[in-house]
Every structure is written in structure tokens, then in C-alpha cells.
């Protein structure tokens, strides 16, 4: 060590002599990777890691202010949003960082699956990755709880209701999850400990292991049809490929990772700046029941599934399906650890990814407008279209009143406004005869409640007369043919539907 060297070089040598990290870091940075892996398709893993670091940093900054107390959490979020300079921006970065992280992790997983990268010898890398996905989703859910608002409160309610369905130990699990008999301060501190210590600690440790294995086993080569993975020959073939047609990881491949990570960080910042932080929505006061709880974006699909499952299938499904899904993911590399990697030779795998993506997208889309939920304010907020009232008899108009007042509109739409739970009723008279309308209204059926005890006979009559006018001008209302026959023989009163020519909805 000569004094002629600049001071920083001497400082570096002084430290390096003690920590001795140069060797392993150089080995990691310069190890050869197959040239064809320096591809834009291989940037999602490093982007996930970048986002994890972003979440840790912004999370620590938020923890400076956030108070994990059920009495104060909401106020401390308001302080972050409004009381501190750029507190809102940090909340927004953390919230959008979470969204991006879930999305990028899912894309990374799909890419790894389609490229066959989970096959020998990288099975354990995939299995650790499955746990990383679960932990990431765990972070997203517990983070939603820490944003302690009405959605968080009732979201927890949904969580404990699901827990409560576990056979035998369900009640205990509920108490354990809530930290008490109800959702309260103890629940929030539990989720705080999970979100801030337990899950991120595990996540960082497993992410370290994941990256370690990527370095040890090498980046998966670009899959070629016909290049079969065999346990006996793969390692040698891979090393040959990395040797003959390899480039050092730094800078050969890493520049794309760096570009993409920077782009993702910019995207998070832009979303945060434009769309702002998530909530908090209403105060987490359970006595404010005029609320429509909704999960965050990446859990909307579960919300949809829980609405559409038949009641008798629900408990088995929500208790068994997640376990089966995780077991399948873990078993995948153990069952299909060798063979073709290329997507050109794995049509079933490609189809599965497409099927899951399309299902997820559609379930999420449904979750954004929840057609299964009654529209709680439609009965007082969505007027009956005027053309449905023109040239109507007083009785029919009174029926329209009944229709609104009895909240029929919460589940049935007229003129494209109102609930979507039941069928739209714009042309219900073409589907049901007068008698069938009476029956349907009074006794319900097909998922409709019976209104018999909520309607007086005059109200029922008015309502059915109104419903019987709901048909297009070109299509007569449905009638019971037998009544016409009976009427001709003078044995029954004339059916009132025959006189309904005047009142018809407009032709559409």
C-alpha cells in the first residue's frame, strides 16, 4: 500500500482488507450468463426486488408518523395526508408501490412458468417464489388493514367470518386473529406487527435465499423447442452454453434490469403524484352502517367468487381451494421438473396461464361494479323513466310508486338504472303473465324474497298492474291462453291484461 495512491483508494483498501467482500461480489457480478437471457423478458424479478426495497423505505418513513391504535390510526393517516408536507405523496408511493409490486410479482411468476424456469435444478427457487407470492399478498392484505378505515374494518370482518368457518377450531382462530372478542385495538396492533415485522422479515429473508439460488444455479436459458431438460445432463449443458455463448451478468444483462427498475419507480411516482394516496375512506366506526365495503383491487376477484359460489359450496371452497392451489404450485416443479421448457411444446401450460388470466380479469371486472349487490339507494335515487308513466291509469302509476317505495329498484333496473341483482324489468310483461307476476311478487322465488308480508293487497294489485305495462309497443304482454278460452265461455272474468293496449313502453 503506497502513499502515492489517492485517499479514497486507500480507504477502500483499508475496508476491503477487513470485510473481504470484493471477491464474492465480483464473482456474482461477472458470472457468465447465456447471451439470450439478456432479454427484456428477464427484468421482472429484479423489478420485484426494487419494489420490495421501495416498500421497505417508504414503509419505514410512514411508521415515523403512523399510530397503530384503533382510536388514533385514522387520524394519523389524515395527518399524513393533510398535515405534513408531502406526507400524502409518501402514502401514495407506498400504496401504488404495493399495487405495482403485486402486479410485477404476478407477471414475473407467469414469465417464469411460461419459460419453464421452474424445472431442474431450479425447483426450490420456484417453491421459495411461491411463498414470496403468498407473503406479498399477505403484505397487501395487512397493509389494507393498517389503512384503518371502514373498508379495513369490514374487510377484517370478512376475514374473521372465513376463519370462523374452519371446522372445530374456527372460534379459536377468530379470537387469535382478532386478539379479542371483537375487531378492536388489539386486532390492529396484531396486523401492525404482522405487516411491519413478521411478514417483511420473512419476505426479505426468503427473497435473499431466492436471489442466492438464482446466482448459484444461473439465470434460466432462453427455452428452445426440443432442448429437453434431463437431470443427468442439464447442468453440464447449461455450463457449456454459459461458457460458449455467455456474457458477464454485469454489464451484459444488468443494464436492462436497471432501465426497467428505474421505469417502474418512475411509474410508481407518476401514479402517486397523479392519483394520490388510497383513502383513508370513512372513520372505522362500526355503527356507521351506511357503507359499502370493498376490498382493494387485487382482492376484488375473491370478492366476486364469494358472491357467485352457491351457498352449499362456499365453505368447502373457501377452506379447501386455497390449500389445493398452493399445493399445486408447490408440487409443479416436483411433478414436472424435467422435459420441454419451450412454450411451443407446452400447450396445456400456456392455456392454463391464459385461462387464469382471463378468469382473473373477468372476476376483477365484475368486482368493480358488483352486479350481485343491491343498489342501496336506487329506490330513492333512481326515478322511474317518464315514458313508463305516460298514459297510465292512476292505479298503474300508484303501482310505480309501490315499485319504488318497496325498494324493488334496489335489485331491478328500469331504463338502465337500478340494481342488477335481479333481471331488468323493462319488458317483464312479455315474460310473465299477470297471474305469474302476482305469484312472483307474493311468494318470491329464483333468489327473490317473498314480498307477501310486506305488501297490502291494494299495493300488490297496483304493483302488478304497473309491471304488466312494461313491454315494448311491438310485443303484446304475455297472457294465459286458457283464460281467454274460459272468458269466451263466460266462465271467468275477462283478464285485465287484454285491456292493456294503451300503456306500453317505447320501442327499443
Amino acid at each position, binding site marked *: 500500500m503506497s502513499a502515492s495512491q489517492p485517499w479514497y483508494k486507500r480507504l477502500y483498501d483499508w475496508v476491503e482488507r477487513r470485510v473481504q467482500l470484493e471477491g464474492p461480489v465480483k464473482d456474482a457480478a461477472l458470472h457468465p450468463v447465456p447471451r439470450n437471457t439478456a432479454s427484456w423478458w428477464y427484468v421482472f424479478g429484479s423489478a420485484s426486488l426494487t419494489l420490495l426495497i421501495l416498500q421497505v423505505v417508504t414503509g419505514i418513513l410512514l411508521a415515523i408518523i403512523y399510530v397503530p391504535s384503533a382510536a388514533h390510526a385514522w387520524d394519523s393517516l389524515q395527518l399524513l395526508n393533510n398535515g405534513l408536507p408531502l406526507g400524502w405523496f409518501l402514502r401514495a408511493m407506498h400504496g401504488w408501490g404495493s399495487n405495482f409490486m403485486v402486479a410485477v410479482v404476478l407477471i414475473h411468476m407467469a414469465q417464469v412458468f411460461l419459460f419453464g424456469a421452474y424445472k431442474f435444478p431450479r425447483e426450490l427457487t420456484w417453491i421459495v417464489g411461491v411463498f414470496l407470492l403468498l407473503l406479498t399478498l399477505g403484505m397487501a392484505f395487512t397493509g389494507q388493514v393498517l389503512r384503518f378505515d371502514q373498508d379495513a374494518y369490514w374487510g377484517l370482518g370478512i376475514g374473521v367470518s372465513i376463519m370462523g368457518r374452519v371446522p372445530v377450531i374456527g372460534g379459536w382462530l*377468530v379470537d387469535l386473529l382478532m386478539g379479542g372478542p371483537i375487531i378492536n385495538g388489539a386486532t390492529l396492533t396484531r396486523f401492525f406487527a404482522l405487516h411491519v415485522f413478521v411478514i417483511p422479515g420473512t419476505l426479505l429473508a426468503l427473497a435473499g435465499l431466492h436471489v442466492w439460488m438464482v446466482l448459484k444455479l444461473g439465470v434460466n436459458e432462453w427455452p428452445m423447442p426440443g432442448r429437453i431438460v434431463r437431470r443427468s445432463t442439464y447442468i453440464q449443458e447449461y455450463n457449456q452454453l454459459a461458457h460458449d455463448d455467455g456474457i458477464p451478468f454485469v454489464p451484459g444483462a444488468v443494464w436492462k434490469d436497471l432501465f426497467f427498475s428505474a421505469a417502474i419507480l418512475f411509474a410508481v411516482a407518476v401514479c402517486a403524484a397523479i392519483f394520490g394516496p388510497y383513502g383513508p375512506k370513512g372513520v*372505522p366506526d362500526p355503527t356507521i352502517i351506511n357503507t359499502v365495503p370493498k376490498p382493494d383491487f387485487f382482492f376484488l376477484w375473491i370478492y366476486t367468487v364469494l358472491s357467485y359460489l352457491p351457498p352449499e359450496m362456499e365453505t368447502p371452497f373457501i377452506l379447501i381451494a386455497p390449500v389445493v392451489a398452493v399445493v399445486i404450485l408447490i408440487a409443479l416443479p416436483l411433478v414436472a421438473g424435467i422435459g420441454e421448457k419451450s412454450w411451443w411444446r407446452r400447450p396445456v401450460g400456456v392455456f392454463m396461464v391464459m385461462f387464469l388470466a382471463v378468469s382473473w380479469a373477468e372476476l376483477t371486472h365484475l368486482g368493480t361494479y358488483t352486479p350481485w349487490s343491491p343498489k342501496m339507494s336506487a329506490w330513492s335515487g333512481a326515478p322511474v323513466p317518464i315514458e313508463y308513466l305516460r298514459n297510465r291509469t292512476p292505479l298503474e302509476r300508484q303501482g310505480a310508486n309501490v315499485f319504488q317505495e318497496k325498494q324493488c329498484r334496489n335489485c331491478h333496473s328500469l331504463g338502465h338504472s337500478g340494481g342488477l341483482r335481479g333481471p331488468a324489468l323493462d319488458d317483464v310483461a312479455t315474460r310473465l303473465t299477470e297471474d305469474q307476476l302476482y305469484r312472483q311478487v307474493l311468494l318470491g322465488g329464483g333468489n327473490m324474497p317473498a314480498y307477501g308480508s310486506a305488501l297490502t293487497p291494494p299495493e300488490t294489485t297496483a304493483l302488478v298492474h304497473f309491471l304488466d305495462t312494461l313491454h315494448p309497443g311491438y310485443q303484446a304482454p304475455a297472457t294465459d291462453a286458457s283464460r281467454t278460452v274460459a272468458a269466451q265461455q263466460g266462465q271467468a272474468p275477462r283478464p285485465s291484461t287484454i285491456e292493456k293496449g294503451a300503456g306500453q313502453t317505447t320501442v327499443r
Partner: protein
Amino acid sequence: MDEKLPPPSPHEQDATLARERHSRRTFLMNVGIALNAAAAAVIATPVVVYLLGPVLRRNEYRSWVSLGKVSDFPPGETRLVKYRNPYTDPQDGDTGNIPAYVRCSEPGNFTVFAINCAHLGCPVRWFAESQLFMCPCHGGVYYADGSRASGPPERGLFTYEQKIENGKLLIKAGQLPTLRNKAAAKPCPSLDAPAQPALLSRIESCPPASPGTSASTIG
């Protein structure tokens, strides 16, 4: 860089290990491991008890809470009430306030429903005009007597155990109702409800043995 002595070769390491296998040092190391295991067990026991605290204390949670005078609840009406949970901590804030519905079907005959939908616990809303409870989450609907009308719930609304003392309506409260953790042991709240007129009496007053085959679902 500094010259370093080469580390022992694997062969030398194996030889050292074999030599030490029955030595006093190995014995002392094993004793040390056992001591640490014992210490871990001693520490773990209170940790487990600490973590299981909420489960072990669960019998203390429920107690009688007054919802107000009986005369506050006129016959034929269903009213939203709130009470302070009997078991709260200072840091609970508003979350210790719990809403419930009190239905008085006839003088002296009360049913107190939990706010939580029997499906997944969202807060149901009462619509007096149509005499229905509707859930905003997944579309569960219940009749005025709490029995299931439509949607995903498998059963009627949860009810609280209730009694009248000194002119006050009391409920046994303190625990969030879920399918395993009921506000009341009664599985079927509609059983003690007044009989409906003959035309309207629904075939199932309890959830049917095989859901989906009831009169109100197949029509």
C-alpha cells in the same frame, strides 16, 4: 493483499471431526446445546401462553348489556341501536361501539339481531318499507324475522340472547358473531317468530337440509 494460510482441506476437516467425536469438548458442546434447548422451552412456554391469551380468556368476554327501556321499542318496528362493547381497552376508540337491530314484533316480544350478515359479516341495512334486511357486500337478503330470504347466506341473521329486567332490554353481548362463534346458540332465529299468515308461511323456516331446494329458491 495479505497472504493467508490455506483453509484446512475437507480431508483434514473430516480427520479433526473424527478425532473429536468422543472428546470432552464434544460432550461439553452437546451439554451446551441441551442447555439452550431447555432455555428455549422455558422462554417459549410463556410466549405461547401470551399469544394464545385471547383464546384462553374468551369466556370472560360476554356479559349482559342494556339497550335501553323496553318502551323505546314500539311494537311492529325494527330499530337500529348501538351499545358499548362490555369489554374494551382505551385504544379501541370507535371500534368498541357495536350496532344491532331490535325488533319488537308484539309488545314484550323482542328479537335482537346482530348487524353482521351471516354470510361474511358485512353490516346489513334494514328497509322498513319492504321489511327486508339487505347486505351491501354480496347481496344477502333477510326477512323481518331474520330468516334468510335470498343471496349467499346459508342461514338467517345471528341473534343475541336477550332478557327483560326492570323494564330494560338486556342482551348477552361481547363477541363478534360468526358461523362458529355465534351471538346466540339458537341456530334458527325464525323458530320462535310469530306464525305467518297461511298463504305466506314459507316452507322453510329453518335453512333446508339441502340448500337451494327450498321453496324460495326454486320458486
